[in-house]
């Protein structure tokens, strides 16, 4: 059993390591893009912003993308850690409980119905996809309320899979009724995009993400105990039902915020927690913050590749996360054997 000071030391090392990575990536990413810009002009106050193309490329096109990638990457990675621990299943992901399916359904409804409104500068698709994720969270939450104490987390897992299937079917039905252009727009949305074009949707997503983070802060110790089994956790004084609900709500809010901002780049949520566990071990006090930082860095790098690899056009970021993440994950899995 590692001592408290040992954990503190490892936490400091982990945060310093992953923090430095995130910092470096955040600093580097806005400097690279499909066009070349002059940094002397970007920060040249003598040119009015409206006329300064370099400043606009930097502040309107690139910087919001990097920030959005950080929020989406961190949000999905954190939800992934929590879902995997809560359901004690390595394949659990932000979509296991149908949250991402709900978000996708929301986006599809807006795109197919040609809905067009904005709320506090946020356009319709992020709004409806967030509503969809909260809607599916409500169903999952109702399930967890109805669930008797003592049943296995398998019930929740299977319930979530059933809800996801139901919502996906509803989505497919809408797509089937939609015309070709609407279907095309939906497919585009499903591939994920971080070109948010302004700070309003980022700020809006920070509200649910912030609430989720408050929940996450309370979780590391109890998740460690729940990972060993609910009975063992209860024996050590953990209120399993309460923890489960905090974890469900936090992870769902965080997924909803991430998916409404960047589309369902869900692979991040499965793979980043495992990558981080392979590096820092299973202690959630380390895994949670490290996953947030690594998820952010990983998605920023994937987006950087997506927007430069076949310049002047772009690749959808969802394709890059899987192409880079898959082999990297396999390497981590097999390196020591």
């Amino acid at each position, binding site marked *: 059993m590692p001592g408290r000071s040992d954990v503190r030391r490892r936490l400091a090392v982990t945060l310093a390591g992953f923090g430095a990575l995130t910092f470096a990536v955040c600093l580097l990413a806005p400097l690279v893009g499909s066009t070349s810009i002059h940094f002397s002009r970007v920060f040249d106050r003598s040119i009015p912003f409206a006329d300064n193309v370099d400043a606009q490329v930097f502040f309107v096109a690139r910087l919001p993308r990097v920030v959005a990638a950080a929020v989406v990457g961190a949000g999905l990675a954190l939800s992934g850690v929590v879902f995997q621990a809560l359901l004690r299943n390595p394949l659990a992901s932000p979509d296991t409980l149908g949250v991402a399916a709900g978000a996708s359904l929301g986006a599809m409804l807006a795109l197919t119905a040609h809905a067009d409104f904005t709320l506090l500068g946020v356009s319709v698709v992020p709004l409806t996809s967030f509503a969809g994720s909260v809607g599916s969270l409500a169903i999952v939450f109702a399930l967890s309320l109805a669930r008797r104490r003592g049943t296995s987390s398998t019930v929740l897992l299977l319930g979530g899979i059933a809800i996801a299937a139901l919502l996906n079917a509803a989505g497919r039905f809408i797509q089937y009724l939609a015309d070709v252009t609407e279907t095309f727009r939906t497919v585009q949305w499903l591939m994920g995009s971080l070109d948010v074009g302004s700070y309003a949707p980022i700020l809006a997503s920070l509200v649910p993400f912030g609430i989720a983070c408050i929940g996450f802060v309370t979780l590391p110790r109890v998740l460690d105990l729940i990972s060993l089994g609910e009975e063992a956790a209860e024996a050590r004084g953990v209120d399993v039902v309460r923890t489960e609900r905090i974890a469900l709500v936090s992870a769902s809010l965080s997924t909803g915020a991430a998916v409404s901002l960047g589309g369902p780049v869900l692979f991040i949520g499965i793979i980043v927690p495992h990558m981080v566990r392979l590096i820092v071990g299973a202690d959630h006090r380390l895994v949670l913050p490290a996953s947030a930082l690594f998820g952010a860095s990983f998605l920023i790098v994937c987006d950087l590749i997506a927007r430069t690899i076949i310049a002047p*056009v772009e690749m959808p970021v969802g394709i890059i996360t899987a192409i880079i993440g898959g082999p990297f994950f396999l390497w981590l899995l097999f390196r020591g054997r």
Partner: protein
Amino acid sequence: MAAISRTISKGLKAQGSGLILAAALSLLPFALPVHAQARRIISIIPSTTEMLFAMGAGDRVIAIGSYDNYPPEARKLPRVGALIDPNVEQILQMRPDLVVLYGTQTELKRRLDRANIPNYSYAHSGLADITQTIRSLGTRVGVAASAEALAARLERQLADIRARVAKRPRPKALLVFGREPGSLRNIDASGGVGFLHDMLETAGGTDVLGDIRRQSVAMTTEMVLARAPDVIVELRYSKDDINNADMSAWNRLAAVPAVRNHRVILLTGEEFVVPGPRVAQATERLAAALHPEVFK
């Protein structure tokens, strides 16, 4: 002529008339319209439906696709599905002697071939392909003369627009045909090939994405800023597809000359998305948007 005889021989093969017969007949194109007459045509694609009606073969069309809305008299006809959901059973039941379908509908084509129903595959690309399709479809249907007249008229109209803007400076233009409502996300713009690109060049503009050899380009805000178009033209099927809040989304990119000089223009109408006989009309509207001084 070679193209016409090639098309006819393709059609004959589809009828199961045999390779040798088709090859022999393709050497005698002048004798063919009699054999190639079609009287019960199903056209699934909006542009070919428009072409058939415009070349005077509308009375032979017995059914159309779900999204075919022009000309108005076509709307009375039964609909048999569209690009991704053609109703094969209904099509077979109507006993057509020609089905006009899109090039990617290979499964439908296979089933029609199996049922020995002649079909004509069409795929749209540049402006020149529109008149080429009108000519070959006209010959296939048996109205070659009126199809030729229609194609020639279209070519004349396009040449006339080209001549009117020939001496004007050519603004760098971006043609946007879709994006996420109320934002600048997932912008779809016309690339350097295809009928929209050709329309833009004919209308006296320089395509800012002309170097990207694709029909559609997924654009980002960085690309719009870097390419700095003088004019941004938003093309939409109908006015319901876009509103004022949508158009004001562009104001975020104040450094783009089109935004700074208030030259973000919305053009709505089916003719912008259907590469058919109304393409000259669409090109003229586009030219008027790019060169208002010429088209007062």
